[in-house]
């Protein structure tokens, strides 16, 4: 702990201190009512009976107006009584090596903000200016997936956190740690009335409690220190997840004081990830080793490259096909054991690792005209044994339904898949008898042939509509790949839906080459998460590229400015199909179910779903926010040269966008 404490200073509490400061520094400029308060005794006192009663609908006084719309008055300085508490908070934050802090500024955390940039010298973390709280959280989300290191963000306690919530839900569903701190002025008797009080709440954390791992509201500086380190530890222990802290404005501005013991910064030690029960691991290994058609299904199984390597080892040991559901990279797309979901129908044993929807993995749902209710169809043979390793089993909440439909599992192991894989691999080695090895090799040969046939079929599918206008999504992906294949590339996001061509056509072999999707499927993740990931990749010497959809970009396009302002290199190639296409299809299908002609107005798609007339000039938008940009590209022959130009720009350290009109999917 580097922060000195001032034992000899008067033991003023915060409110007494503020009152004193008001007398010393601002008495001449405040309205009489405030001056009277300032001159009042420093212990809580009832309002004098003789004080005039103010009507409730008075216009804001000078103090209130200035608090939100005027030139801010200097907050009460605590320098006379020791450094501000927010300086100590910076010491705590710095102890955790948090590199960046993307956030939209807000009055309720102004004390900490000031300490971060002045006392903390704006390093570790460096403040990155965001134009929406959702952008700040999503940048943290993307950054973690690129680097494995969490970031923190700051939000205005009420309105800022309300803005941030969808991004928090995405992080929750995607099992990504994000440290969120919300400013909040809790003392109703002393905080400024009007806007600052609109922006305060008893419990700001309540709005995200259902989709955060943990939250707290510290009431002292030592409490802050312990809770901040605790929230970091909770967030970064699998299953990962966002965490929330409400930070009282008074606590930020209080002077550092001795509460009977010196303040200290607790040391952080990472927790070991939970592993599956060893007896269950052995039973799973026995089932897998003796299966005729085992299938490995993975979703967020590999947290690191080591997880990828372990999965390869397990798959090759079993000669079992691997179905990668794609919320993480998990398994190389080039490996002959990488197979499509259809192989699940042939399985006699399925092991699912960190699946976000096990039920949906082995069952189908047809939204088929029964007025949207659909039918259930099993995908597996009767008697198929199901095994699960999932850390999410250790953390289930009630309200939001991200836990999906219940699936009965024969061998269920609550635990982290990557941490359990070494013991599972050893158990499988022990369980495979020598008499099985020829059969396993033969199985592998068959899968290899299927893999080659599948790749050829995929290429033939990509060739259809190759020269179509608008540009086919297969052409979009391959024109892009041709320009970046010699870079140390990282595909940081694919928003919208491009028929999964990246996983089907690109050689994705490293953990950072595919970062998955949003988690909660809240639109607006793609742009900010891409920029957050690109920030991390910038420092690691990687070339970041994203497929950026049109609807996603328009939720909070200000994040483009953040990328330009902070020189975050990213190549964003747009999948601009000029509509909220999932909804385009939903309304069309509902019209047909109801035997009606869909009303498309003057557009191509049902009213309320298209983004055209006028068409958004995304390239002009990006230019106005500091990006190099080009478009709209409608002829596929123009696409390669445009991307080539953009790649050259990105290699200079700038972001670039190519606006491409595309086929719907």
């Amino acid at each position, binding site marked *: 702990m580097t922060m000195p404490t001032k034992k000899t200073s008067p033991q003023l509490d915060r409110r007494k201190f503020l009152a004193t400061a008001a007398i010393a520094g601002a008495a001449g400029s405040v309205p009489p009512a405030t001056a009277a308060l300032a001159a009042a005794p420093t212990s809580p006192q009832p309002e004098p009976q003789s004080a005039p009663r103010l009507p409730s609908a008075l216009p804001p006084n000078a103090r209130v107006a200035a608090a939100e719309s005027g030139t801010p008055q200097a907050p009460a300085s605590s320098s006379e009584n020791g450094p501000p508490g927010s300086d100590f908070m910076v010491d705590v934050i710095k102890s955790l090596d948090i590199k960046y802090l993307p956030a939209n500024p807000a009055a309720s955390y102004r004390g900490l903000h000031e300490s971060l940039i002045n006392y903390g010298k704006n390093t570790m973390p460096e403040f990155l200016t965001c134009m929406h709280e959702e952008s700040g959280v999503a940048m943290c989300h993307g950054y973690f997936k690129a680097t494995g290191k969490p970031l923190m963000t700051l939000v205005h306690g009420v309105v800022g956190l309300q803005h941030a919530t969808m991004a928090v839900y995405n992080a929750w569903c995607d099992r990504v740690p994000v440290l969120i701190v919300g400013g909040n002025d809790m003392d109703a008797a002393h905080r400024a009335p009007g806007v600052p009080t609109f922006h305060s709440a008893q419990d700001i954390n309540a709005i995200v409690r259902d989709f955060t791992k943990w939250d707290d509201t510290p009431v002292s500086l030592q409490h802050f220190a312990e809770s901040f380190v605790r929230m970091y530890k909770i967030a970064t222990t699998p299953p990962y997840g966002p965490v929330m802290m409400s930070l009282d404005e008074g606590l930020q501005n209080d002077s550092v004081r001795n509460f009977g013991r010196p303040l200290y910064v607790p040391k952080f030690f990472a927790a070991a990830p939970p592993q599956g029960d060893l007896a269950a691991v052995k039973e799973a290994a026995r089932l897998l080793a003796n299966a005729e058609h085992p299938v490995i299904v993975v979703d967020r199984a590999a947290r690191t490259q080591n997880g990828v390597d372990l999965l390869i080892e397990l798959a090759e040991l079993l000669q079992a096909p691997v179905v990668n559901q794609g919320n993480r990279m998990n398994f190389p797309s080039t490996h002959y054991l990488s197979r499509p979901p259809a192989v699940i129908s042939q399985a006699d044993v399925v092991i699912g690792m960190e699946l976000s929807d096990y039920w949906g993995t082995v069952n189908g749902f047809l939204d*088929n005209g029964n007025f949207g209710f659909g039918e259930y169809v099993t995908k597996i043979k009767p008697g198929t044994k199901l095994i699960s390793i999932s850390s999410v089993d250790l953390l289930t909440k009630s309200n939001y339904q991200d836990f999906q439909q219940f699936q009965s599992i024969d061998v269920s192991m609550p635990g982290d898949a990557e941490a359990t894989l070494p013991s599972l691999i050893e158990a499988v080695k022990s369980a495979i008898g020598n008499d099985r090895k020829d059969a396993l090799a033969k199985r592998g040969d068959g899968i290899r042939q299927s893999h080659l046939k599948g790749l050829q079929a995929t*290429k033939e599918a990509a060739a*259809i509509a190759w020269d179509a206008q608008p540009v086919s999504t297969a052409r979009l992906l*391959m024109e892009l790949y041709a320009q970046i294949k010699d870079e140390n590339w990282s595909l940081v996001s694919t928003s919208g839906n491009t028929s*999964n061509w990246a996983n*089907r056509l690109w050689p994705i072999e490293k953990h950072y080459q595919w970062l998955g999707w949003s988690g909660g499927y809240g639109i607006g993740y793609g742009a900010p998460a891409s920029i957050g990931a690109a920030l991390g990749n910038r420092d690691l010497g990687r070339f970041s590229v994203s497929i950026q959809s049109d609807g996603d970009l328009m939720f909070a396009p200000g994040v483009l400015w953040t990328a330009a302002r902070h020189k975050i290199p990213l190549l964003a190639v747009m999948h601009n199909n000029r509509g909220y296409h999932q909804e385009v299809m939903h309304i069309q299908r509902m019209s047909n179910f109801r035997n009606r002609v*869909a009303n498309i107005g003057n557009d191509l798609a049902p009213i309320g779903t298209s983004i*055209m007339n006028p068409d958004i000039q995304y390239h002009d938008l990006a230019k106005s926010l500091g990006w190099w940009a080009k478009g709209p590209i409608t002829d596929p022959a123009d696409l390669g040269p445009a991307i080539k130009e953009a790649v050259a720009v990105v290699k200079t350290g700038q972001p670039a966008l190519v606006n491409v009109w595309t086929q719907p999917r």
Partner: protein
Amino acid sequence: MRAMGLKAVLFVVAGLATSFAGLNVAAAADAAKGKIAFTKHGCWQCHGFAGQGSVATSNGRVIARTQLPLDAFKSFVRTTNGQMPPFREAVLSDAELDDIYAYLQSLPAPKPVADIPLLNDARSQ
């Protein structure tokens, strides 16, 4: 292609109607109407403007130059009860359905994969 409004589609289709190589005049006219109906009734939404399909929306099925005979094609469209909704007569007339079939048959065959150098990079190790 900036054929975003129905009027624009009509304009483009009028130009294309005379350019379908290998088709007789009557078939070309039907195909042109079919393209309009294909657009108006939202077939493109799941199947793509070129009938190329998608693993995301049509289970990967390609309907360009469909191998289904006309009667089987029409029967499927009228009665399908899967992910694709049925298009009944009240929504899509028989004549329009015939035109859509003609349009799908008029679409060009894809290039061979070997003739597309970019696809040689696909999942190469």
